[in-house]
């Protein structure tokens, strides 16, 4: 099994997001960047598939050279190879551009694959677009938001989380899967893994190597304003003993908020 995992460098979930209102961008200075949390489940699943069935795990990121740090982490977790597709364009929150780049990488450089794994969305852009778009471009079956994955020969079964229930999906390989929390418990890097990752060279591909013109991948959306959400005002503290406070709360919800 040849498995490719696509990962992204994102600000960690504890980050306070500050905005540059002139450029309509998030101020990156002072943010702590990590491997996007859902991508960790995708990497772990790829490693488990390799452990069960053999083959190779290659991790790919599209972004600036700063993404080398998360690729090193994936190598330290146990991935065999890592590749950076260098794209210095600022974050445009456009899944189409990333999907075109990834699809072209697969067509031009890595035609031999069985499974492409993603996190169900990157934390931050929150688009949940790239897996389905790449599946569309490459004409592959897709199962998103997966909490259970079984591969048998050239077919697979995946459980996909939808509102309140799970959908059981059947598909043939090659296929695209995006990981949801619950799929597995990602492993930590080992000391040995970290030492090996340090020595490992990560090839860097340029967009030029992929015969992609800047025009083809130009985002077709434009952010015209970025702002912080309106702050919520702290409301009333309801005083009194529990019995009295509960009674008052229910009255307020009925008569003032009118939500029950």
């Amino acid at each position, binding site marked *: 099994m040849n498995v490719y995992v696509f990962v992204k460098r994102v600000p960690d979930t504890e980050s306070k997001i500050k905005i540059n209102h002139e450029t309509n961008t998030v101020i990156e200075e002072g943010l702590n960047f990590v491997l996007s949390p859902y991508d960790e489940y995708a990497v772990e699943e790829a490693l488990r598939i390799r452990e069960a069935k053999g083959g190779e795990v290659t991790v790919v990121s599209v972004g600036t050279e700063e993404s080398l740090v998360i690729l090193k982490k994936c190598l330290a977790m146990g991935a065999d190879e890592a590749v950076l597709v260098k794209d210095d364009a600022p974050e445009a929150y456009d899944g189409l551009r990333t999907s075109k780049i990834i699809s072209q990488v697969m067509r031009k450089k890595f035609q031999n694959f069985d499974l492409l794994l993603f996190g169900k969305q990157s934390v931050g852009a929150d688009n949940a677009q790239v897996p389905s778009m790449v599946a569309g471009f490459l004409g592959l079956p897709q199962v998103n938001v997966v909490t259970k994955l079984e591969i048998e020969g050239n077919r697979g079964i995946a459980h996909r989380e939808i509102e309140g229930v799970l959908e059981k999906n059947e598909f043939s390989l090659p296929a695209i899967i995006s990981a949801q929390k619950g799929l597995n418990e990602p492993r930590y890097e080992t000391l040995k893994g970290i030492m090996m990752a340090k020595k490992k060279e990560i090839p860097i591909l340029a967009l030029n190597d992929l015969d992609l013109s800047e025009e083809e991948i130009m985002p077709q959306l434009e952010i015209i304003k970025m702002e912080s959400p309106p702050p919520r005002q702290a409301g009333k503290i309801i005083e009194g003993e529990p019995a009295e406070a509960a009674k008052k709360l*229910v009255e307020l919800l009925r008569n003032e908020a009118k939500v029950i």
Partner: protein
Amino acid sequence: MILVFIEVREGKVKKSSLEVLSEGSRRAGEMKTEVNAVFVGHNQENLASEVFPYGASKVYVLENSLFGHYSAQSFTQALVSLVEELKPEVLFFSAGSMGKDLAPRVAAKLGVSLASDCTKTASKEGKLEVTRPIFAGKALATINLKSLPQIASLRPNVFPLTKPVSKKGEVIKKDVVIPEDQIKGKTVDILREEGAELDVTEAEVVISGGRGMKGPENYDLLRELTAILPHSAVGASRSAVDAGWIGHQHQVGQTGKTVSPNLYLAIGISGAIQHLAGMSSSKYIVAVNKDPEAPIFKVADYGIVADLFKVIPYLKEELRKILSE
């Protein structure tokens, strides 16, 4: 034309699709165009009448027996060919699980960008402008979609339903030809877990428990509250989920679900920044926590500073009383 994809689950039109149709109808009025609906399914003609009251002028019903099993591949083929024929200016999806799966594939096939999970739409000079939360709501981005059709998915539970009007329109049925061997993946079954609960993203009231719940057994207290309150669901903080007290599908926050119910009850939740991101767009927030300094009180409309285990029994009693009146 604004075209709205109508999601059907187990033979029923999803309410979130009617919300999207309502919003489409408001924008169509301003943009001086019409809003039409499209179903992709097997034997769904009878459902068409349900969407006219929410503003649809025409309803397209795309028919193939294969559509009985959801497949992003077959649904995309059907939608793309209709869009290429009708050339709508705007294509809307609900950002529920089906829309989130389908819309990006449709956008890719049409070669256009997509704005996912929007919480606001507006028309500016005949074009659509949308706003979507990023970083789970820590920031809001307003977006121009530069190519046609402009495709967006809209977050469930955010856009109000229009008042239904008694209205009929044209139903246009189209048989779609799709070679079965081209479909390489599909849904074959729905797995219902025992005591399947309403999803937090669809609930009108979310009752969430955090670390203060002390253990998995105490989530029954919250389930008892959801049994009393109609359209309510149990949520949880990340620390409760990571402790294994409750399944991750209940998690609200930046690595869980983003919710905007009418009422959010945060029980024993301190209010870490990644949790606040996921629930701050709720219409009303109630916090019960024994720590008066907990950050959750900074966003709560109503707060009770007390031991949650002492408050919940009374809360249950009072809710039961008022709801039975």
